[in-house]
């Protein structure tokens, strides 16, 4: 028997409840037996079949995940094959090179980041982007970073010339916020990776 999925959203700071809501909607839509937890301690990640790092302030989330042991645990779990998705600040945390001393990336995605690449909040915007395998998607960019070098990660979407979404094996990273919209397709895509990985790990 398959165990119910447990997806953890790193729960210190940022738009945590929006991700939780989207995951619950995704589980209902896909008719999957799933549980969503907010993780503030490393032990909250035990038996997680997927992990999401939300949007928020990367300096704040970095500091707290380091302090309470989540940083190293997420890194370890991701290396063992657990799917991880990072949106905006979450993407910065899982990148290889943040180009900012204040936040050191976990190196789960072989990418380079330029923080606040579009400017300040007045330059934040919404725009449709075309995502490989998903299609046109309303992307909400809020003080967003840009993936200045995708390295070994596969580019899934660009906005003009800027790389805004990548995947590298079990890891997905986005510079924008699908959790602020009504559109669950990116969360569905993430859960499909979770399902695939679990499928293998249960030996079926």
């Amino acid at each position, binding site marked *: 028997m398959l165990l119910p999925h447990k997806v953890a959203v790193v*729960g*210190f*700071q*940022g*738009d*945590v*409840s*929006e991700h939780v809501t989207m995951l619950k909607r995704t589980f209902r839509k896909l008719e999957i037996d799933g549980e969503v937890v907010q993780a*503030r301690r490393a032990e909250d990640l035990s038996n997680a079949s997927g992990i999401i790092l939300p*949007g*928020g*302030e990367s*300096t*704040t989330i970095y*500091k*707290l995940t380091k*302090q309470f042991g989540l940083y190293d645990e997420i890194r370890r779990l991701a290396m063992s094959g657990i799917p991880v998705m990072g949106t*905006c*600040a979450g993407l910065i945390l899982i990148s290889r090179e943040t180009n*900012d001393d*204040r936040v050191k990336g976990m190196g789960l995605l072989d990418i380079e980041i330029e*923080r*606040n690449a579009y*400017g*300040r*909040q*007045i*330059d*934040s*915007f*919404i*725009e*449709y982007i075309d995502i490989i395998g998903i299609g046109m998607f*309303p992307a*909400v960019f*809020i*003080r967003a970073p840009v993936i200045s070098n995708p390295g070994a990660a596969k580019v899934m979407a660009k906005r003009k010339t800027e790389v805004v979404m990548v995947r590298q094996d079990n890891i997905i990273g986005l510079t924008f*916020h699908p959790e*602020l*919209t*009504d*559109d669950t397709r990116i969360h569905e895509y993430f859960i499909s990776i979770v399902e695939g990985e679990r499928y293998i790990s249960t030996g079926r």
Partner: protein
Amino acid sequence: MSVDMSKLRFGDELVKRGFAKMTKGGVIMDVTNADQARIAESAGAVAVMALERVPADIRAAGGVARMADPEKIKEILHAVSIPVMAKVRIGHLSEGYVLEALGVDMLDESEVLTPADPYFHLYKKEYKVPVVCGARTLPEAVRRIFEGAAMIRTKGEAGTGNIVEAVRHIRMVSDGIAVLKQMGQEDLKRAATQISSSYVKLRRGVSQDLLGDENYLSGFEAYYGLSIEKIETEIMKVLREVKRLGRLPVVNFAAGGVATPADGALMMKLGSDGVFVGSGIFKSKDPEKMARAVVEAVENYEDYKLIGDVSSGLSGMQGLDIEHMPEEMKIQGRGW
């Protein structure tokens, strides 16, 4: 919230409310220079509020408190990578645009500064940057949300280091929502009319002055081109949304009197989405330690052992009693 692509790409409500959502669970700290901003950032603040003086000093100095010197704001904008907010006087639309042009990420239409308009708060929908406003009660919060506030905070009683008013205000808002949830259509309509009545304050006075009675109160542009009938319709929409969600449709922070890590934790426990700390950090003995402690307490607001640990040896700011404070000394009465 559904995305309508015919709307503005920039400055859209989704983008403004979305920005506020990114600060959830965090602490926003008042800072008066680049060094303080860096201390706040390295302590884990999600944003800083750029000010010339913290509220306790504004209170002590008296006189007219205005928008901070743009030089000061630029200095702080350059010092940190986290968002920078700044305070605008209630209704001072020009200060608002100046701050927006400076690159400030969010405006705080704040009662801590001396109000500039005795009748109207800013029409916040006209700004591309999000605006946060104070509220003591649900009607105040609903008016501000109708006007376009992307975030609400309690007013509390700024600069006192006394949490009682912030607690009063979050309880007032929460209980207002509880009552709203029980209301039927007829009471909702009555509430919408009642909440909208402050927008005809100017016309009432003018009519009294001209005719000795209150006439000409309908069919005119009461507030930024909107008739009172239109305002009531829009207020009704906000009320319905609050009723449906069981909470405010925007992020709701605590402010005005948070002086210790436990104060921050208390406000989170009472349902705040995050905390503003004004004078509490840089009026304490060891601001770096206090800043870190408040962040940790807010992020782990039910981990009481941790809150005890981070509070050990901290010396909070000197507080002020509010119960016996003369009304004219209170800041929270500014705005309506």
